[in-house]
């Protein structure tokens, strides 16, 4: 794979969404129960990523971090992609994260990883965006990487190293 140049890395923090053109790396570090959604237009070489924390905004208050929620964050990223010049029918969409980090606890918030994955898939379907790859579930944190120059998606874990998805 290409060497990652530090200067070109954009860190996608919780609730944030970024779109890059032609060059640069989008990276969401340490997705635990969170889900990262990456979109890529291979013709225009436009890549975007959102770092989702929760499935549903309906129970929440107004926010200026729409990327926190699957139901707001995925459409928000799609809008950003289209605005940057991407075409919806060309989009390659991949997702990563949604782990269950802490296994034994009984609390309902512990299941948030799989609820996040289900919510993201539902929203993608509603938007008519097919899913081209995923690395979800399990009990490991994942770093999700999109190399905008090449359109390659990678997932990095503590135990498994870095693999392309």
């Amino acid at each position, binding site marked *: 794979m290409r060497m990652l140049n530090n200067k070109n890395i954009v*860190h996608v923090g919780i609730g944030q969404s970024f779109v890059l053109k032609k060059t640069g790396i989008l990276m969401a570090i*340490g997705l635990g129960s969170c889900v990262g959604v990456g979109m890529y237009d291979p013709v225009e070489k436009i890549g975007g990523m959102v770092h989702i924390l929760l499935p549903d905004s309906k129970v929440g208050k107004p926010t200026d971090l729409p990327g926190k929620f699957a139901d707001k964050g995925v459409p928000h990223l799609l809008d950003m992609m289209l605005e940057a010049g991407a075409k919806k029918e060309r989009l390659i969409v991949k997702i990563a994260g949604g*782990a269950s*980090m802490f296994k034994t606890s009984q609390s309902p918030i512990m299941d948030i990883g799989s609820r996040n994955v289900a919510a993201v898939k539902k929203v993608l379907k509603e938007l008519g965006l097919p899913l081209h790859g995923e690395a979800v579930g399990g009990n490991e944190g994942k770093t999700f990487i999109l190399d905008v120059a090449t359109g390659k998606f990678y997932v990095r874990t503590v135990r498994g190293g870095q693999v392309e998805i």
Partner: protein
Amino acid sequence: MDFDKLITQNPLFIDAFREINNIGSGNAASAVASMIGQKVDITVPSVIVEKIPNVIEKIGAPDEVAFGVQLTYEGELDGVILLVFKEDTVKKLAKLLMGMEVEEIDDMTISMIQEIGNIVSASFLNAIATFFSVQILPSPPSAAYDMLQALLNLALASIAAETDYALVVKTEFVIGDDETNKAEGWIVNVPSPDSFIKLLKLMGLLGDEDVE
């Protein structure tokens, strides 16, 4: 006034909240000290008020690998406690507590860390519950070894539906006074927005008319 405004515009409330956490961590430190027969030092808790994406950088590097022991608490106050131990800290604690060198982190070491986490958080919460005469019920702890950001996800998820800002308290503790055998970790407390408001009322800093 809502939670975001309360935590971002009132330094007095933040100071008061730091004091409450100081009561908790002081008690946690003495519980651990008597369990392992070693000196335990704690720092004054630092209260982090940040937009949710920026919380992690105030705690550590997002991809730093560490042990986390997490539990939730409910009752009259609710929130999430995450204890963070660095890997070499876990090995030192295993040596202190089980009297053996640990090369690989195995199930026994993990259950030891979970138990320490249980004692630290129970005594932390007990001190606060006793001080305010309220009931707080901790869940069983559970442990993971992973990137710091991933360990912190659930704690932030527990409040993020209600607020863009997080109120997070980080207290560092150091076990042992032997420089070469020092074990360090952090107690991270993330109260629910409702609990923070309730605590301010319990301290007489807020009246019912001040919050929606």
